[in-house]
């Protein structure tokens, strides 16, 4: 059976972005650059609905 692994790859990429954003947010907080913290926190939150959207789109792809 041939499957589409596009969703898996896309979601892996989203998770990579999540890790980067979390790391950047925490580091910016340490260096007291609070605008950057807010930016990356918002990015991280926005990535979650994107992940859900990718999941629903790719769920039934054969």
């Amino acid at each position: 059976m041939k499957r589409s692994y596009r969703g898996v790859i896309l979601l892996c990429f989203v998770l990579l972005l999540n890790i980067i954003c979390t790391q950047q947010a925490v580091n910016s907080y340490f260096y007291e650059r609070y605008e950057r913290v807010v930016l990356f926190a918002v990015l991280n939150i926005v990535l979650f609905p994107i992940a859900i959207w990718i999941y629903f789109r790719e769920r039934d792809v054969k």
Partner: protein
Amino acid sequence: MGEDIKNNKKADINRTKHNNDKIPFEENNYTHNIRKAGERRLDRRGFMKTMVGAAGIFAVSTLPWGALAVKELSGLGSKSHPKQKLANANDLKIGEAIEFAYPGEHDAALLVRLGENEYKAYQNACTHLKCPVFWSKEEGRLVCPCHHGFFDVKTGKPTAGPPQRPLPEVVLSKEQGAIYATGVKRYET
């Protein structure tokens, strides 16, 4: 005793055949300790669900940092103190220091003139055991006499002795030839 052996033999005969009766028993896989159906399978859809869940966890985990940053940006965390005149700029010679109290009347502080236009002020309770720190012009650094603690006058950071934390800096502003204290930087724990 004899009765027992007899009964055991009877039980042996009556028992139905199990895998364990043959030692070692035959097994073509090693899944006999897995209870749930499909427990060993992680299919494409399950993996994608896991990734979405992880994205959600990451999103939630940055919320506290974002909230703290917003708090800092909105200035909720910093206390504001009234402006207080400390000295006329020319009354204090270069290399001299005066004591004052800011923001409260029991919060001793030290104003040092380092250069023509370079003033530094710190709350001068030593961060070790609260002894009053004084300005040593000869040594060019702030000295705590109690346990020989030394602080860098430019940054307030401890350079030697028992204190580990910097002195809280008093924020200064110069207006019309006078030095004003306008706030205190946060005490770093």
